[in-house]
């Protein structure tokens, strides 16, 4: 997280820590974690934790470790051989089903899914929250969770950013309507934050309540603008997948 601040897990109780490769995810149900496809690509049994602010071993020992039942990557995600030269992050979304239900509490809680009404269409200027243990301005990996608040902006802003990855050309990157661009004044997500939630306030609700509008997906250069998978486009797929895979687990 660039331009963010140290925070406590209680402020982002839906935050899931993916151990290796480091990444994030959003808890959306007792049995389901929403993340970016590229986080779990090639890893059918990711190790995950919830409920801990710090990534210290002794803290993780007391946190809830999540055991994977299955990983379901969006069928439209395009698998590529070279992960470092990927330029097409369209449909960067995946679901991880858990073996056992997560116990909710002050440090663990799901984030809401967007509803179908237009109130949940992300709009420019909407301020959202991001979080993660990814790279910061000063450190590649951080121990304490960090969070940031940043606005949604136009996709052009993300398109205009010059590439950081020398292996890919700026024009090769794919921008679709399945993506949200967000960022301002150096507030951005970065490597290690992928899969985490871009949370927006639930509209028309008095008490603070958030839904996952986006998932940290990719960006040309950390600290500028980042691209987030537009979760609202995938709600049907999410619900259908959860429905189809609910019920008694098969051995």
């Amino acid at each position, binding site marked *: 997280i660039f331009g963010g*601040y140290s925070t406590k897990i209680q*402020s982002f109780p839906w935050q899931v820590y993916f151990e290796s490769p480091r990444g994030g995810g959003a808890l959306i149900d007792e049995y389901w974690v929403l993340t970016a496809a590229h986080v779990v690509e090639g890893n059918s049994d990711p190790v995950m934790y919830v409920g801990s602010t710090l990534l210290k071993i002794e803290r993780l020992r007391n946190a809830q470790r999540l055991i994977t039942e299955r990983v379901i990557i969006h069928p439209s995600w395009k698998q590529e051989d070279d992960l470092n030269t990927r330029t097409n992050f369209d449909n960067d979304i995946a679901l991880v089903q858990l073996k056992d239900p997560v116990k*909710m509490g002050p440090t663990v*809680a*799901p*984030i809401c*899914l967007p509803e179908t009404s237009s109130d949940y269409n992300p709009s420019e200027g909407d301020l959202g929250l991001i979080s993660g243990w990814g790279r910061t301005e000063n450190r590649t990996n951080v121990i304490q969770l960090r969070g940031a*608040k940043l606005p949604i902006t136009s996709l052009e802003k993300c398109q205009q950013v010059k590439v950081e990855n020398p292996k890919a050309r700026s024009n090769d990157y794919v921008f679709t309507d399945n993506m949200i661009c967000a960022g301002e004044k150096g507030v951005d997500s970065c490597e290690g934050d992928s899969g985490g939630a871009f949370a927006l306030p639930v509209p028309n609700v008095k008490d603070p*309540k*958030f839904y996952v509008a986006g998932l940290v997906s990719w960006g040309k250069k950390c600290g500028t603008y980042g691209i987030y998978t537009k979760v609202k486009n995938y709600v049907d797929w999410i619900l259908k997948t959860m429905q189809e895979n609910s019920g008694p687990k098969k051995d």
Partner: protein
Amino acid sequence: EPTMYGEILSPNYPQAYPNEVVKTWDIEVPEGFGIHLYFTHLDMELSENCAYDSVQIISGGIEEERLCGQRTSKSPNSPTVEEFQFPYNRLQVVFTSDFSNEERFTGFAAYYSAVDVNECTDFTDVPCSHFCNNFIGGYFCSCPPEYFLHDDMRTCGVNCSGDVFTALIGEIASPNYPNPYPENSRCEYQIRLQEGFRLVLTIRREDFDVEPADSEGNCHDSLTFAAKNQQFGPYCGNGFPGPLTIKTQSNTLDIVFQTDLTGQNKGWKLRYHGDPIPCPKEISANSIWEPEKAKYVFKDVVKITCVDGFEVVEGNVGSTSFYSTCQSNGQWSNSRLECQPVDCGVPEPIENGKVEDPEDTVFGSVIHYTCEEPYYYMEQEEGGEYHCAANGSWVNDQLGVELPKCIPVCGVPTEPFKVQQR
């Protein structure tokens, strides 16, 4: 040795008898005979009460006759001047002369012979209860048809005991009823009904004619009833002195009809029937009895159905009805069973929620499920309240028997994210 005949002559007969003489003759004829004693000659000093000279005839220590003076024959064809007949087989003849006889008296000549005694007629007491048959030297008793001679060989009786009545309804009468009942009889009847019935006797006043009691109130002929722990009677008289119906508390009864030697009464007749023992009718708000009757008696079967919300538990099995039978002891079978409020038992726990410990878990009780707030909420808004239903399940108005679900509250952080501005 007993003899059939004999001669007794006064001392010195036919000459004058001496003074101051007492002579005794013991006469004995065989058993079954009497003695015919007759004098052919009697010439003794006459005195008042035969105080001086006499001939005494004594039987069994009792002076039967005392003779003195002279006798002559009343009939020219018979020499007998005096004769006696005694129905005994032994006699004593005692001749007594005193010290002074101024005249010459020649005494007596007597003869005796054994004569048959008619035991049937010669005595005040008739030896047989019914028929007496005399023969020379004895007699024997006999009985009318259907009578038998008792071991005493004198009394006749009727064999009227041994009948056992087992039918639920019946009629019993004295022998020969309405003709006179036999004398000297003891008739015993038994009524034996199966357990579960109580005997009721009905005797109409006009159906009873038994020799009345004597002046002291004692019945010589009597009818007595004996049940378990109860006795009725003895009854006698013209017209039944007891109640029209006698209700016993027993399924068995012994009837004894005792008669003596006398009386010519027609006897008695009774009817009996067995009343089934009743079982108590128990009124309960928790159950319905079928069939509904004002009174239940032995062998009645009822189906007892519990009203809604109640059940009968036997072992580990609960059911809504059971059958009960009125038993022979007046108690219902399965009396230990009763309709109790259905118990829904301890409510099942739910994940991420809890249910308060209910005060009661029986029909009508209410419990409340709640979720672990603020992290969980109930999926159904009104899904927390359950009541114990009649079928033994905890039921919610919306979910039915399905348990409520506690769903995680989404999107609410415990602490707000604070941007630390410098």
